[in-house]
């Protein structure tokens, strides 16, 4: 087909978390510019299987930019060159015929490689379990419109809640910090009246768990915000720091 591209992929191959990985060079031929980056991988894998070779393992699911499962580090950038999109929404029209594309997994001590490009992000679940919630049992609530929330607060909380938990912020950060992820949840709940009761415990417990998982600290570089596919704002980290300071100074426990 005309307009199709031939590309060279340098892909990270690693059998499991204990074995050493290496780059492998794979040709991707006849790639349509309308394909998504993952559909290009489908084509490559189909060929590898037909040639009797092992396909490249990678994480993906919804392929519409919302589940947060896909996670490739493309040419040195999480989710590739385009602003505000996940790998599954990155289209091959962002590349040129003849390009060489380097694809790696997220790299962080807190995200061990499972195989090839798939990593273990269960540390995020444990941070959420440490405090990323409002303690309200089913049925233990009042009528929804009894809680009035200023529209601006609701909108800001929503913007923070748009985080998809993909881990691009960690992969982008030179310190492997998870502060953007954690602060998005802390902010969402700190901005809402429902979240006030537990706000001190929440931020202290989530940050404690974040440190225990081996994530680094924030040095305000802003790479996370620049690479976040949902464009979560750095202001959330500032808000979390304020919440954390105030909780540390005033908590009577």
């Amino acid at each position: 087909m005309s307009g199709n591209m031939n590309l060279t992929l340098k892909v990270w191959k690693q059998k499991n978390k204990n074995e050493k990985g290496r780059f492998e060079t794979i040709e991707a031929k006849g790639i349509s510019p309308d394909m998504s980056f993952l559909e290009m991988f489908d084509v490559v894998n189909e060929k590898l299987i037909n040639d009797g070779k092992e396909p490249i393992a990678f994480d993906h699911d919804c392929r519409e930019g919302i589940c947060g499962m896909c996670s490739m580090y493309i040419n040195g950038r999480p989710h590739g060159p385009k602003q505000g999109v996940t790998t599954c929404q990155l289209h091959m029209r962002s590349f040129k015929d003849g390009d060489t594309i380097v694809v790696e997994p997220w790299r962080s001590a807190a995200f061990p490689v499972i195989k090839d490009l798939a990593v273990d992000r269960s540390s995020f679940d444990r941070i959420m379990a440490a405090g990323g919630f409002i303690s309200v049992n089913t049925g233990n609530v009042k009528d929804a419109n009894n809680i009035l929330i200023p529209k601006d607060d609701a909108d800001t909380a929503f913007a923070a809640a748009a985080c998809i938990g993909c881990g691009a912020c960690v992969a982008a950060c030179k310190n492997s910090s998870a502060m953007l992820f954690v602060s998005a949840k802390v902010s969402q709940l700190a901005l809402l009246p429902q979240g006030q009761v537990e706000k001190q415990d929440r931020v202290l417990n989530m940050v404690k768990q974040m440190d225990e998982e081996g994530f680094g600290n924030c040095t305000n570089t802003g790479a996370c915000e620049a690479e976040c596919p949902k464009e979560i704002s750095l202001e959330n980290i500032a808000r979390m720091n304020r919440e954390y300071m105030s909780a540390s100074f005033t908590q009577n426990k």
Partner: protein
Amino acid sequence: MASSPKLNSRIPEGTLENKWTKYRSTVPLVNPANKRSLEVLVVGSGLAGASAAATLAEMGYKVKVFCFQDSPRRAHSIAAQGGVNAAKNYQNDGDSIYRLFYDTIKGGDYRAREANVHRLAEVSGNIIDQCVGQGVPFAREYGGTLSNRSFGGTQVQRTFYAAGQTGQQLLLGAYSALQRQVGMGAVTLLARHEMLDVVTIDGKARGIIARDLISGKLERHFGHAVLLCTGGYGNVFFLSTNAMGSNVTAAWKAHKKGAFFGNPCYTQIHPTCIPVSGDHQSKLTLMSESLRNDGRIWVPKKKDDNRKPTDIPEDERDYYLERRYPAFGNLVPRDVASRAAKERCDAGYGVGSSKLAVYLDFAANTERYGKTEATKKNIQNPTKEEIMRLGKEVVKEKYGNLFDMYAQITGENPYETPMRIYPAVHYTMGGLWVDYNLMTTVPGMYALGEANFSDHGANRLGASALMQGLADGYFVIPYTIGAYLSEEIRTKAIPTDHPAFVEAEKNVQDQINKFLSIKGSKSVDYFHKRLGKIMWDKCGMARNKEGLTWAIAEIQKLRKEFWSDVRVPGDANEFNPELEKAGRVADFIELGELMCIDALNRNESCGGHFREEYQTEEGEALRDDENYAYVAAWEYKGESQFELHKEELKYENIKIAQRSYK
């Protein structure tokens, strides 16, 4: 018609309005001490699974949650866009529980159970309360109250939403409730685990076999009850709006162990999806139904009109939904809108390079919003450009993420030119048959959310899937499971070296070994795509006897080929996505055959099931209430053999009529 003796729907006595309230107050309870020793396995962590698991754990049961994704937060409920219905009547537009009930039954083309649907409408308001309590950031008005919008098949505004990411926000709410229980040790979370069989002992569900997808190890898990919250099976068509991993395996294994499958042929084809662009395509992307609040659907009046849509003047456009259905216009239910789009395209009026698309146009409403904004801002005599700029800001706030997604995928700017859309497989109304307690025909095994067949009849209304998933998980199963578990308090945990566990694990292992030993010449996807094409062509938007008969024979051939020529690389004891896919496609092939059998059996058209032989002169679905007002529940009897059982549908509170949206 009488219902089959094998199907006891256990609908409580009493008037429709009082059934649930009365039943809920009389269903047996389990005391807190006994709850601590009762184990519940929840398979799937979407809206139904996460909400059920969190709530059961809050009540004191021991819960294990399984999901194949790397985190429960990634279940495909996350991708639901438009909203969640609830009969709150916050807009003072005449909404009520009865209206939501009525709209849902009518929307389902009179093929759903009255008692279940009424219960759904009754608890709908509680869902919104619960979600707000959890901190779900719904859209709000300036006064701080919740905002609503309209969805198809209704004339009130009862849909609550969070931009175009309502499913994400509701799921994250349920996920946070779930993680809270995980943190408290009340729930054991097993992510990257896939259920591959259910274990039955003396006819009751007693556990599952799951594969750890990282190590490849098979595991045996005992439970006093098993909840399948595993979603729908739209991926049988290969191309659908479902996530790549969405599958029928858990439900299908349950079916083969005795759970009847209800109405498998009822498939929802969603009218507003981004059209297929080429052979490489791996999935289809939905553009939320909420867009039909402000988008007008049209095709050119002239065949093969190749002008740019913005160059086609108003009087040369056919707004066919507004023309055919003036009362509901662009907000007719999905099945009606999809068929109308197909009709126009088949007649040669389609647009775009494939001619399999229609326009969804926001210009008129952008202008309307722009004028309102100009008035608000006191701008006298605004120019057209000014109006459109102001209008675009409003449209952006309402649907920004959807417009971005569209631009990303198609490379076109929907603020400037109409979207091109076409119907695509989206949801399956069919699923495991369940009684009023949500229990399947296997005692102790339940099906919740999209995985069951129960509430949407032959067509689901928009924003009702989120409602049903959360209703089942938060407000139904926590009560109804007591009816079964109160009888199980004396059952001690069964050791997993019991012969039934050993045998089930061996069968799973044998199947895995078989996949790896075939070493054929075609990839799993190759077979999946072929199955999808058969299903879309013959069991998709329009079906007929001849096509279905052909499809059944073709699928049987495909199955033989699959089992002799599939190539699954790698080995069993590692992370092996191809092996996972092989198991899922093997089950899809068997399900596809049953869907065609069911579609062939149902000699009528209703909702999403459109048999070309049965239509009115105007091309509307022609039901046969005398002979087909029943749920078709299929019992597995061996390879390609299924026995039909009928559950009669009785309408005592609604006058059954031909569905009209004119």
